[in-house]
């Protein structure tokens, strides 16, 4: 019963909680916001590339998607942090920039890794919703004199985005949770901060319980928000 007697939640809350709510929260928000913006951008580019009629581009994107979907996110983060800078340096040296060395902070690598991984999954959502827009919409817009690009930007994408926003919400919640993987590449987010605190104080049970509760407090409301938006948008579209 020694362990129970030694439990010191007040201390852990007093010391760890401010750390989590300070710098760690800032980093999680930063990673999620920029990671998600990158994911949506990547998602749109990949989706449009796959819809385009250029065969070579289609094939390249399919190969890229298979690579991303066939490897774990954690491995991708490690690769992005440790290997990609080396490859970039090597490539730069090869094409003549002899003194260049690529530096990437762990947070940058984390954001890139998360953004590209999620972008790949989101691209399929976007592609499906673009393809689900009735062809008559494009034809009506073309018949009014819009160019194909205007048709895509003004008629098809606005409807496709409306249809995919509910799914985006779910991906956002997942991404918040997956920022914890960045601890493995030394990003000072929630998990890494907690781990450091634990190794100083040995308040293992307290620290990790607090960590779990913090994730719950962020993700459950976000999840409800996503559900609410899903309902809202489903009502609107019919």
């Amino acid at each position: 019963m020694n362990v129970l007697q030694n439990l010191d939640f007040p201390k852990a809350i007093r010391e760890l909680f401010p750390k989590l709510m300070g710098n760690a929260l800032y980093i999680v928000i930063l990673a999620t916001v920029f990671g998600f913006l990158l994911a949506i951008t990547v998602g749109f580019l990949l989706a449009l590339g796959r819809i385009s009629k250029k065969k070579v581009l289609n094939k390249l994107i399919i190969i890229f998607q298979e690579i991303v979907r066939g490897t774990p996110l954690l491995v991708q983060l490690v690769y992005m942090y440790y290997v990609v800078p080396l490859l970039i340096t090597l490539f730069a040296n090869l094409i003549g920039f002899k003194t260049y060395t690529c530096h990437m902070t762990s947070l940058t690598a984390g954001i890139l890794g998360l953004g590209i991984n999620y972008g790949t999954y989101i691209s399929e959502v976007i592609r499906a919703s673009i393809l689900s827009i009735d062809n008559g919409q494009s034809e009506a817009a073309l018949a009014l004199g819009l160019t194909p690009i205007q048709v895509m930007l003004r008629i098809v994408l606005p409807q496709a985005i409306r249809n995919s926003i509910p799914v985006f919400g779910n991906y956002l919640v997942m991404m918040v949770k997956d920022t914890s993987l960045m601890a493995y590449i030394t990003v000072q987010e929630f998990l890494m901060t907690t781990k450091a605190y634990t190794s100083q104080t040995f308040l293992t049970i307290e620290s990790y319980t607090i960590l779990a509760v913090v994730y719950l407090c962020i993700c459950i409301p976000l999840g409800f928000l996503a559900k609410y938006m899903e309902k809202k948008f489903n009502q609107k579209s019919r």
Partner: protein
Amino acid sequence: MPLMEIKNLQKQFGDLQVLKDINLTISKGDVIAIIGPSGSGKSTFLRCLNMLEDPSGGSIIFKDQDILAPKFNIPKYRQKVGMCFQRFNLFPFMSVLENVTFAPKLILKKSKEEAQETALKLLDKVGLLSKADAYPNMLSGGQQQRVAIARTLAMEPEIILFDEPTSALDPELVGEVLAVMREIAKEGMTMVVVTHEMGFASEVAHRVIFMDGGYVVEDSAPSEMFKNPKNDRTKQFLSRVLNPQGGA
């Protein structure tokens, strides 16, 4: 000078040749009804006229311009050639008013006020002024088609193509759409209408074209076409359509 001159028009889908050899001259102010059995290529022909389908051969001359020329500006051409669809194809995320003002603002660079003024006049003309702020899914099929007509008119086209505009409507809603079309025809708009409404064809059209098997089989005034068809296939088709109960 004819508004549009179609010569030897052909369209092939894979092995299937839908349009074999279409020749037609459309003059300004013509109201042309295209009739014929399903699969005869009526809709394909109409869609070739504004390049929603790419013709496989022949030529379409619009006001002395060859629209099939490689560098021809098709979007610009489509501004002058309006089209109404069987399934209306209104933009569901825009209000009725926005549906009508959208293209004039974007393409004709009209100011918001100017576009709205025109749109409200057109909505009044099709009898839907009160629905300006409604969304398409709140309207009946007949109302949607009338909005679609207003949307097309807002681009001030020189010719309007109608692709079976009443085929997707409940029978009691057909009349209101035909009434609007009759009104537009009276005002001198050039119209090409693919239709199954023989009443409309005989009453409003100046010319009726009977298509079958990828050819224009007969092209004559409605009185001639309906009372005294020359071609056997025309006779057969008309007797079936005009006396659906069987008869002879």
